């Protein structure tokens, strides 16, 4: 389905939808260090989940496990009914449904903005070039920089680069978007333009998992907030619950340091 239609209120729909991502007791080690300790969570379709936590708490590691940029060693991860195993076909299928936006943008510096966006649709999705380019133009308009299509990433500002990166991920028409601290590498005045694009996306009904330190964004957009520390999920709840009446001491401590 297209990411554009659905403008129905998200919360009402939640119960009726299938589970999009299911994590059951996910473990992950780096050498002897256990980065994820039995992380279990279920993300529904169209749900926007913001993952909070101090640095080193395993937030990024977790979402990088969801599209196999990191391999988990224990537990199960199921994305849209496909379990993430060593089978490459499963990995390919999941990666084609999950888009990812990185902290450092990771645009391809030797390709123009347009080619950055059309490369994967043409080669991984086998889209005709004309169709892919039309899609690229449409997506660039959506993220607000249609005039930059023929420039190279190095010629754009950080905020523009991150918006191109979002357009690039959307060009694969994913069903889930993962955001790994998308605004942490940006100058303050550019953060807003990226967050606006993400809000727009959330309103359009995209299933999103966002690792971020932007509390305003979490409060405004998230359906649910997951708080992680030391590789564990400490607390889960609506933004209202999370910011006003957190239950766990560790959550309170984190909030007191950050707010």
């Amino acid at each position, binding site marked *: 389905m297209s990411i554009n239609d659905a403008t129905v209120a998200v919360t009402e729909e939640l119960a009726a939808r299938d589970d999009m991502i299911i994590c059951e007791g996910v473990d992950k080690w780096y050498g002897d260090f256990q980065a994820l300790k039995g992380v279990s969570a279920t993300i529904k379709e169209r749900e926007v989940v913001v993952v909070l936590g101090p640095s080193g708490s395993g937030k990024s590691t977790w979402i990088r496990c969801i599209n196999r940029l990191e391999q988990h060693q224990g537990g199960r991860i199921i994305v849209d009914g496909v379990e993430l195993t060593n089978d490459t076909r499963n990995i390919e299928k999941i990666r084609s449904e999950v888009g990812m936006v990185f902290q450092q943008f*990771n645009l391809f510096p030797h390709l123009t903005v347009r080619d950055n966006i059309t490369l994967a649709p043409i*080669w*991984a999705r086998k889209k005709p070039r004309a169709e892919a380019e039309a899609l690229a133009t449409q997506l660039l308009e959506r993220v607000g920089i249609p005039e930059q299509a023929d420039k190279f990433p*190095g*010629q754009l500002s950080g905020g523009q680069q991150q918006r191109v990166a979002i357009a690039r*991920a959307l060009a*694969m028409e994913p069903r889930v978007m993962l955001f790994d601290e998308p605004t942490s590498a940006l100058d303050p005045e550019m953060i807003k333009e990226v967050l606006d694009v993400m809000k727009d996306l959330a309103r359009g009904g995209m299933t999103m998992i966002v690792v971020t330190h932007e509390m305003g964004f979490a409060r405004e957009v998230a359906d649910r907030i997951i708080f992680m520390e030391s590789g564990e999920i400490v607390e889960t709840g609506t933004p209202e619950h999370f910011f006003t009446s957190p239950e766990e001491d560790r959550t309170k401590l984190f909030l007191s340091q950050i707010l």
Partner: protein
Amino acid sequence: METTQLDTQTTTESNVAVRPEEPSLPPLEWMQRNLFGGGQGSIWAVARSSALTIVFTLLGLFAYQQLLNFIFSEETDWNSVRVNLRLLFTQAYPESDYHRVWISLGLVLILSGVGLGLMKVGQGISMKKIATWCVGWGGLVVLGVFLRQPSVLVGDDGTPLLADADGVPLARDGLGTLVYLDGSPAPSQGLSVVRESYGDAIASRSGWLLIGLVLIGLAAAIWFGLGDKRRRSTFLPAIPFSLAGIGALISTTWWYNWGNYTFSADEETGVSGFNFEPGVKVAETTRNPWTIMFVVLVGAYLLGRRLRGSAFEPRLKGLLTLGWFLAPFITFFAILRGPEFDWGYVAAVDVPLWLAFGIGGAALMWVLTKPGIGELGRVLAVLVLAIAAFTWIAAFFGWFGMLQKVRLSFLLLGLAALLAPNFIGEARQRLTLVYGWIGTITVFHVMVTIINTPSSIEVPTEDFAGGFMVSIYVTVFTLLFSFPFGVLLALARTSRLPIFRLLATIYIESFRGVPLITMLFFFTVFVNLFLPKGMELALLAAVTIAFVLFSAAYLAENVRGGLQAVRRGQYEASDALGLTTVQRTGFIVLPQGLRVSIPPLVGQAIATYKETSLLAIVGVFDFLRMARDIIPNQPEFLGERKPALLFICVVYFVGAYAMSKYSQRLEKNLGVGER
């Protein structure tokens, strides 16, 4: 002036003005500041830098003087080079077939010319730079006029005049013995040549002096005629300027009497000799081809210029790349060798084979790219590869005879089948692969047929190519084959699969651990012993293979360095987008890695070009061997080594310098968009 620091901060594209530069220093002040430690305050600093400047200037002048003394010495017989130019460049390539050499060169010039025409125009050469060049070269010429020792005086019989230890001139009597002018006998020891006086020497070089002064005058005119700003911002287009220079040089063959130097060999008597006719124009066989070559180059350049920016440009660039790729094969095997086809065999065997593989392969590709072929496609591809592998195994055990061409064709077919899944889609995309296959197999069969046909060119040695020609070809073929091989090795060495990593590491380390000259001997002497009966490696093929294998090991390490410079995020981004490993490597990792590797890769290319001089040692009649062994053994130039050696130094240098300059340009052009 109101241009302050504010100007330097505006970097938007609307502002094309260059950064405001500091005005250039007046020459004297420049020298004081840069050569004599001015502005550094301490007297020691001034003394130290002045001393260094003076010592190294004197050393440089001394070297320059010695070089000039050698070049212009009466004892240096440049005829050994002049007469042997043809030998140096093409060995004993028969004169009756010389048009083939010119056609080859013309082909390369067409490709270069069109390429130059299509190139992005840079700023060109600033007048300031031209003034600097003029004053530099003019200064060198003037200096040379005063530095070189006076010429030796020569008597009527062409031998140098001699004088005794006190400088009293001697002469030869009727019997040829040395005597004083009054007829008394001369001593036999402590004799020296008589040189003209210094004043006479300068006077006799007035032509050179004039050239130098004109150059300096030109520089002064530019320098003082244009203001500081204008001489920096006035540009001459570099390529037309260079072409005009080459044209001017070639035009001198039409009006200046360079003299005619020919080598004549009487085939019946075996007596050879050289003819030297000063004061005439060069032979038409030199002048006409060079003029035609120049016209071809300019024509190709204008054509490229004309088509630049047109709708045809992308296709033309593709054609050019294909042309550059095929040119070495076409010029070497098709043009220079002049293959003598057995047309009956061609019609009976070669053409049917080509048609079978062309049509059959095209049909297979069409099937393999059908949307939804799925697993069946992979099975078919593996099947074709298995057939290819089987034909090679069969060859190894000698089960049944088969043309090598057929085995290679099967191998190509298998590779194309593996590529096929990338072209699954609508008809246009599928046709790309089908056409690609037909083109590849056609070129392949034509080339193999030509290479398998004996040459019609007869030369005294085993190989039809020699001299500089062979150095060039070995360099080009080495680069052509070792580049893809080296890239594959680098990828294998960075692969996640241990078997590839291990094999690549073993290969690279062993080939880097063996001296090139050893490899060359190994391949020329030993490899033929290991080959199956009836198969033999020609000398040139053997050394080229040795060069390819050797150079690939080094290239691989250079490329690996570049690959490691590609950031991890690039891999992650391509993975997250669902690109396959092959796509990731081809579209993301290699383009970025190779860009970083350009400087070491060009360094390797230059090294290969220079290392071809080792061919002289294993018996190939290459450039160096001509100068070192062949020319000094000609009866006319017995022992005359130095001029030819100096000459090949210059030729090698020009080639290497051109490559280096080209790589600088390439780096600059590819740097676009990467900051």
